């Protein structure tokens, strides 16, 4: 029996058929079995009907990409096979819903049809067809059936013994069907050491968790894919610590409620996606001019307008970097992994209060919605810092009838008195104002306070503003967010062929840590890999660096994340082109 050390598996069917939960059970089972898992969910903007699928990649070592291939495909309808045919590896097994039991070699894969629904009905539970398919998967990789049992007992604990037993019976049936019909195709997924010190978490969950631990106690937002899970997670956990979420009437209320809560002294945030970000834009300026801290999470999806509401893209960078009229101080962060989403979100609240400005946390659909294996949280990595908030004693020392909220200071950051402080009474304003907060149109004060406001963020730094691997390579692949996973795989594949490329994953886009990353971007062939049309990341870098003429962008904006293979081929070709050009010049 062949042994394997990785599995790429996919289940697909119509929306409403339980595809998502089937994928979750398979993934969590292998996660607990000791494998590193990465996932990707493909779905449409409707509740029922339409093709949906759930991709799982289980590997011995950590990865950040759900993989290009499929070893086992569970197709609950024929469309699933048609849509995903191109991903099948030679020798792949497709288990498909069909009229009769039939095993056939088709082209280079095995097509095994089973009347799954009919078999499940015979077992007395038509809903359990997905569990039969899971059992078949388990049997095909020789996974001990108990691994499923544990999960079923946990998952259906509230539904009682009858439901647990019927699901176990369905899984058993899957195992026996494989023994009966597909015995020759059974492989063994090697057991690996189990490691309890890992988490199975999505980017949205990590972002919410990090925000919560940083002391965020108020989140106001409007439901929107793919960001809603942040609000949902917070809604469960905030009340116990004296906070709450508010699902408000619109996106503008989403950000302005949070600005109000922050003004009053709470750590507050809003979460949204592109269309919501557009609506919130005027309020970026309100937070910035009034110097009120605020954290804005943008889980990006494919725009513009309604665009592809359930598809992946990284096309809001310009909006986060430049959005709103006038000129404002801002900090733009973009975690490059699900693990980092926790820390970046947590630090965003420190930066917002320390620099008294809006802080954007960019996510993208692939990063937001998919779960993966991560290490456990390192609590020591973030220390809460609320910035320059003054106590009544400190405020009293100033002895001011109107507390100078916008006091000129060396670092441009003014002490902040929170409402309720008897010695800190002041007005904060979206109108241009002087040190005392009162409206002014004096050109000198205007100039001086603009310089204070826009200059104050220069020193803002995330503790890990970027990650770099092989920074001395002549070619650098640069990406943000979920693209890090693609670049890491491409880099590894090229390394196997003796081609050395570096990887730079920028987590702080504004203010860009120019001096720190300059060594990795100057006098090199820079290739950005990004999910948008314009090459927003490359253009942003070009503003700051004399980027080499041979530099290039690899873009994709069809709604799907990159496949590793595509980027690998393109990078390889680009490198050959560069070498040829260099040879010609030499």
């Amino acid at each position, binding site marked *: 029996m062949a042994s394997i050390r990785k599995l790429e598996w996919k289940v697909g069917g119509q929306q409403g058929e339980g595809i998502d939960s089937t994928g979750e059970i398979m993934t969590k089972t292998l996660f607990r079995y000791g494998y590193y898992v990465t996932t990707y969910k493909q779905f449409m903007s409707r509740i029922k009907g339409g093709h949906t699928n759930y991709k799982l990649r289980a590997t011995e070592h950590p990865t950040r990409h759900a993989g290009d291939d499929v070893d086992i495909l569970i197709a609950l309808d024929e469309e699933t096979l048609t849509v995903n045919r191109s991903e099948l590896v030679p020798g792949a097994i497709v288990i498909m819903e069909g009229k009769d039991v039939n095993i056939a070699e088709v082209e280079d894969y095995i097509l095994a049809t089973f009347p799954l629904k009919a078999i499940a009905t015979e077992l007395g539970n038509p809903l359990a067809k997905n569990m039969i398919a899971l059992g078949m998967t388990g049997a095909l990789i020789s996974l001990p059936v108990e691994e499923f049992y544990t999960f079923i007992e946990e998952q259906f604990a509230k539904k009682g013994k009858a439901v647990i037993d019927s699901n176990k019976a369905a899984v058993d049936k899957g195992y026996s069907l494989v023994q009966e019909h597909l015995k020759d195709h059974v492989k063994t997924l090697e057991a690996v050491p189990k490691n*309890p010190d*890992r*988490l*199975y*978490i999505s980017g949205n*969950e990590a972002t919410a968790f990090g925000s*919560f*631990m940083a*002391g965020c*106690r*108020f989140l*106001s937002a409007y439901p929107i894919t793919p960001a809603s899970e942040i609000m949902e997670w917070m809604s469960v*956990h905030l*009340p116990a610590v*004296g*906070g*709450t979420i508010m699902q*408000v*009437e*619109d996106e*503008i*209320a989403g950000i*302005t*409620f*949070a*600005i*109000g*809560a*922050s*003004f*009053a*002294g*709470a*750590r*507050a945030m809003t979460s949204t996606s592109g269309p919501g970000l557009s609506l919130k834009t005027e*309020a970026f300026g*309100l937070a910035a001019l*009034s110097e009120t801290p605020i954290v804005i999470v943008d889980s990006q999806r494919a725009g513009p307008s309604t665009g592809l509401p359930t598809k992946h893209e990284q096309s809001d960078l310009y909006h986060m970097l430049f959005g709103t009229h006038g000129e404002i101080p801002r900090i733009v962060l973009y975690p490059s992994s699900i693990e980092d989403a926790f820390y970046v979100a947590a630090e965003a609240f420190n930066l917002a209060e320390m620099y008294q400005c809006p802080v954007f946390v960019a996510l993208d659909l692939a990063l937001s919605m998919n779960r993966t294996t991560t290490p*456990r*949280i390192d*609590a020591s990595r973030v*220390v*809460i810092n*609320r910035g320059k908030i003054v*106590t*009544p*004693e400190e405020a009293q020392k100033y002895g001011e009838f*109107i507390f100078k909220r916008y006091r000129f200071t060396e670092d441009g950051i003014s002490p902040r008195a929170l*409402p*309720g402080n*008897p010695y*800190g*009474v*002041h*007005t*904060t*304003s*979206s109108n241009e104002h002087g040190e005392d907060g*009162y*409206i002014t149109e004096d050109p000198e004060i205007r100039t001086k306070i603009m310089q204070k406001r826009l200059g104050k963020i220069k020193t803002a730094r995330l503790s890990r503003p970027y990650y770099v691997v092989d920074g001395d390579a002549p070619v650098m692949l640069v990406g943000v967010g979920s693209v890090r996973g693609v670049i890491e795989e491409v880099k590894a594949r090229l390394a196997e062929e003796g081609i050395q490329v570096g990887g730079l994953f920028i987590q702080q886009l504004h203010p860009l840590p120019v001096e720190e990353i300059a060594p990795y971007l100057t006098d090199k062939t820079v290739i950005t890999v990004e999910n948008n049309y314009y090459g927003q990341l490359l253009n942003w870098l070009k503003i700051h660096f004399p980027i080499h003429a041979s530099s290039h962008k690899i873009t994709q904006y069809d709604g799907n994340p990159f496949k590793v293979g595509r980027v690998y081929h393109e990078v390889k070709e680009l490198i050959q082109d560069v070498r040829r050009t260099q040879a010609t010049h030499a």
Partner: protein
Amino acid sequence: MSVELKQPTLKDFKGDTSTWCPGCGHFSVMAGLQRALVNLGIHPHEVITVTGIGCSSKISEYTRTYGFHTIHGRALPVAQGAKMAAPEMHVIAAGGDGDGYGIGAGHFVHAVRRNIDLTYLVMDNSIYGLTKGQTSPRSQHDFVSKTTIKGNKEYPLDALSIAIANGATFVAQAFSGDVKRMTEMIEKAIQHKGFSLVNIFSPCVTYNKVNTYDYYRDHLVTIDEPLSTREEAIRVLKEHGGNVQGILFVEERDDFQKQLGIDWKMRDIENGPMDEQMIRELEKEFM
């Protein structure tokens, strides 16, 4: 630190120097608000005043409290957010009729039904003053302005009936030419537990030559006691073409925050390490 607090006086509430036109109705509104706060023994540092944009919204600059002069139409969401974070503060939202019933109308109807404990003062002059005289959502039918040269063909927004029909728990209407009554209403509104709306006719002496002090003196009917049902309150408003002053309707019911029953501690976050024990507890969800 324990703070020895003297009884507040009007002087404590004096903010920046006003730039309103002489004779503007807003002066009296401001005086009424400050008087109401003094009468209730509330200190400036115990008040958050959130305003939108427009002449009237400058009241947060001219009245010394924790003021937040925000953006057009957004006083209510900012004020509600502030109250959520700091329930012990008195929160006043204020602005004009364009700010609240035009660009901010979406927030208005939801603030009404949500019933967070704050007081909303709308300084209603039925005109856009700061932009120098355009028709507002409260301008009368056939009102002539720079943007309605042949007369306004829309009918004014019936904000009070909307609020009453939508479940408001305190609805009043005042006139800045009758400061005594107005001040009483503002006091009661601040004391009310829940969302309280006081629409205040506050004449714009520069741009609105129809809704003048004399107009209101001639037309306003005074209601001495709140009406007993919502239907009755709406009927009375309709009967007098909206020209009514007094507390129209009051209902005592638990406000939003009380209903949630949360022990509010949003502002209590202190510098220092994250709570490791809590992290370990929450991680279990992801294992």
